[in-house]
């Protein structure tokens, strides 16, 4: 890709990343949530790789890292859901944290935490799939 595309992609991907983080953390207040925000965060990285080529990041290490992050995020969401069995009433997915004042950033109990974990999981899963395909193409062409 040309210099213009590379520079614009580098400038834009930061904005897209921050917007994805905003969508994830404000998932209980504004439209969006873990799934949409995670796709945005993954899109920021995919845009960088598409513009700069696969030499831009150390591919192999990145793929392993993102798959570990993905698995850990799913595990954390499961641990959080299972903690509802211990805290308060014996209900899986029990919302045991205090609700707070609706409309504030820290409110709605466990829902923002679930959103953060699932946002991480979605972003890491999409990046993992994309990187796996890119690495596959690299290894085939060698």
């Amino acid at each position, binding site marked *: 890709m040309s210099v213009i595309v590379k520079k614009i992609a580098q400038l834009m991907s930061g904005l897209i990343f921050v917007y994805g983080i905003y969508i994830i953390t404000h*998932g*209980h207040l504004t439209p969006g949530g873990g799934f949409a925000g995670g796709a945005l965060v993954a899109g920021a990285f995919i845009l960088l790789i598409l513009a700069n080529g696969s030499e831009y990041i150390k591919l192999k290490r990145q*793929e392993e890292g993102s798959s570990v992050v993905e698995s850990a995020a799913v595990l954390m969401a499961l641990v959080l859901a299972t903690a509802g069995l211990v805290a308060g009433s014996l209900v899986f997915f029990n919302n045991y944290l205090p609700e707070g004042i609706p409309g504030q950033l820290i409110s709605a109990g*466990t*829902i923002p935490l679930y959103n953060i974990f699932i946002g991480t999981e979605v972003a890491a899963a999409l990046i993992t799939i994309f990187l*796996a395909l890119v690495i596959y193409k690299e290894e085939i062409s060698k």
Partner: protein
Amino acid sequence: MLSVIIGFMIIAAIVAIHAKDLLSAIIAQGFVGYGLVICFLMLKAPDLAIVQIVVETITLIIMVAVVLDSSRKELEVSFDRRQAGTIAASFLFIMVLLLYFNRAISGLNHFGGHSLRMSEAYVTGAASQTGALNLVTGVLWDFRGYDTLGEATVLFTAAIGVITIIRLVGKK
């Protein structure tokens, strides 16, 4: 109007079972699928209709490709006496299923008339019960947490599957 489409779908399903040529059987099966799309649209579920169009088209393409690649003739299956027990068991199972279906359906609203009991409880109670102003997130992560966990697991499984299949070359 709805019952006319459902009648055509039933006829197409019977044709699909009895057609000698497998390609025409697939076309009749596609008729059932796209009739279901029109049914979803008439029952005011456009999101389901979109998903059904996508799934039906992909399934039809795959099945047409399989049939064109293998054989268009139906396999001749002769009746075996050992199958009598299986047929009797499945007939019994279908009768029991129909009995309980009949008992369950008597408590429902008439076909096409929506019952809004559940969604009314969600709309009025979600904000005060969960503390989340975004009702969709409140429903997703509180009332229907199992459902969302399944969705997240589907994506996890997809990533694991892609790594397992695609990265075999590199990990060797």
